[in-house]
C-alpha cells in the first residue's frame, strides 16, 4: 500500500516542480554563455549577464520556497485538511500515510539540491570536452580505488544530509499534528515547532554534558559520522512516531 501512496505523492511532486526544476537548469545554461568569465566585458553583455544571473538566483530562491511550501502543504492539506477526508478513509495504516509524505518530502528536497548542484556545474565554464573523455573517468575510478575511504566519506555525507532532512521534516510534521489538536491550529503548530526546537537545544546540551560531543570529535572520522547520524536519527524517529500516534489515536478532522 505504501508504494501505491507514493505513486500519488510523487505525481503531486512532479506537478509542483515540473516547471521550476527545468527552469533552473535552462537558466544556468543561459548564464554559462552570458556570464563574462574570460572575454572582455562590454556594456551590452554585462547588462544581459546581470539580468540572467538575477533570474537564476530568483529561480533558486523560488525553488527553496517551493520546497518548504511543498513539505508543509502536502502534509497539512493532504492529511489534516480537506484532502484528509480522502486519505484517512483509504484502507491503509497511519504510518503508511506519514511514511509516504515523508519519503516524498525528502526526495523532493534531495532532487532540488541535485538540480542546484547540476545547475552550478552547467553555469561554470568547465571544458566538458576534456572532462567527458574516457581517460578522465579512468583516472577518477583509479583514484577512488586507491582511496576507498573517499567513496565511504561521500556516502556518509549523503546519509547525514538525508538524516538532517528527515529530522527537519519530521519535526515540522509533529508540530502540525500537535497544532491540529487545538482550536487555533496554525498558531499552535508554530508554538509546537518553537517548543520542539527548544527541546532540540536541550537535547544537544544534555549530550554535551554527557561528553558525547567530545567523544565524537575525538573518535575516528568514520565513527564520528555514525555517531552524529545516531544523534540526529533518534529525535527524527521519535518525531515520526509521535506524528503517527497522533494521527492514529487523536485524529480530529473537524
Amino acid at each position, binding site marked *: *500500500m505504501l508504494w*501505491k501512496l507514493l*505513486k*500519488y505523492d510523487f*505525481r*503531486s511532486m512532479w*506537478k*509542483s516542480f515540473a516547471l521550476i526544476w527545468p527552469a533552473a537548469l535552462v537558466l544556468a545554461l543561459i548564464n554559462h554563455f552570458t556570464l563574462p568569465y574570460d572575454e572582455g566585458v562590454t556594456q551590452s553583455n554585462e547588462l544581459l549577464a546581470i539580468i540572467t544571473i538575477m533570474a537564476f538566483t530568483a529561480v533558486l530562491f523560488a525553488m527553496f520556497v517551493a520546497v518548504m511550501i511543498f513539505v508543509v502543504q502536502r502534509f497539512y*492539506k*493532504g492529511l489534516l485538511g*480537506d*484532502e*484528509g*477526508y*480522502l486519505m*484517512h*478513509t*483509504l*484502507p*491503509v*495504516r497511519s504510518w503508511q500515510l506519514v511514511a509516504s509524505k515523508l519519503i516524498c518530502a525528502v526526495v523532493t528536497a534531495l532532487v532540488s539540491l541535485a538540480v542546484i548542484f547540476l545547475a552550478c556545474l552547467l553555469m561554470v565554464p568547465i571544458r566538458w570536452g576534456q572532462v567527458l573523455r574516457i581517460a578522465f573517468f579512468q583516472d577518477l575510478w583509479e583514484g577512488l580505488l586507491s582511496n576507498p575511504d573517499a567513496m565511504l566519506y561521500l556516502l556518509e555525507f549523503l546519509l547525514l544530509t538525508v538524516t538532517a532532512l528527515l529530522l527537519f521534516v519530521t519535526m515540522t510534521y509533529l508540530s502540525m499534528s500537535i497544532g491540529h489538536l487545538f*482550536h487555533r491550529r496554525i498558531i499552535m503548530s508554530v508554538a509546537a515547532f518553537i517548543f520542539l526546537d527548544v527541546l532540540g537545544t536541550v537535547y544537544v546540551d544534555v549530550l554535551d554534558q554527557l561528553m558525547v560531543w567530545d567523544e565524537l570529535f575525538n573518535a575516528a572520522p568514520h565513527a564520528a559520522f555514525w555517531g552524529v547520524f545516531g544523534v540526529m536519527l533518534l529525535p527524527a524517529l521519535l518525531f515520526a512516531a509521535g506524528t503517527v500516534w497522533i494521527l492514529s*489515536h*487523536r*485524529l*480530529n*478532522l*473537524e
Partner: protein
Amino acid sequence: MSEMLIESWGLCKSYGRKAALSGVDLSVGRGRIVGLLGPNGSGKTTLIKLLCGLLQPTAGRLAVAGQEIGPETKALISYLPDRMYFAGWMRAVDLLDLFRDFYPDFDYEKAVAMCHSLGVEPGHRLKTMSKGTKEKVQLALVMARKAQLYLLDEPIAGVDPAARDFILHTILTNYNEEGTVLISTHLIADIEKVLDEAIFLKEGKVMLHETVDNIREREGKSVDALFRDIFRAQPLEGGAF
C-alpha cells in the same frame, strides 16, 4: 461475519466542553437504506466521521461488521463527505486510478460510464470544474464501489430539487443491495420514500430508531411530519425590536 453492520455502545464525542454525541447505542443491520435525520448540529456528521475514522470517540465503543474502526472497516465503507476532498493537481481520471488502486470493490468501467452519463470528462482537471460537477465526480466514485456500507453525508443539501432527484436516482440505481446505505439529511420529504429505517438524532442523542413502516403505522403520520413535530422550534414571542 457479524449480524449487525453498525454497532455502538455508549458512544460519546465532545469538542472541548461541547458534547456532539452523548451515549449513543445503535445497531444497524445489512441491506437497509437508513436515514440519519436531525437538525443542524444534532451530531449526524460527527457519527458518520466516527464511523469513517476521521474522528476518535471521547468514550464508548463503535464497530463496523464486528470490527473496531481501522483499515479493515475502511475497506468496507464508501464515504461521501460534505465537502470536496480533491488535491488541486488531480484530474478525474487520477481519482479513478486511486480508487482502483486502493479499493478492490471499485468498478472502474462503471465509474467511467457514470462520469460520462453525468457529463463529466475524466481527463479534465478537477480544479477547472464547477462545484456541481465536482460533486457529481465524488458521487460517481462512491457509488461505483460495491461497498458493504455507504455513508452519505448530506448528499442532497444545497442543490435544487431537480438535482436532488438526480442524486437520489444515482444512489438508488447503483448501490450494492447487500450493503447498507446511511444517508444523513434534514431534507426528509425528499428521501422518505426510499428509506427502510429512520434514526432521529437530537442534541447528540438517539431520539428514535425505527422502521419507516412502523413509524407510519404507530404514529399515523409520515416521517417528515413526525420529524417536524419532534424538532419544531419554539419561536420567540412578543418583544418588539
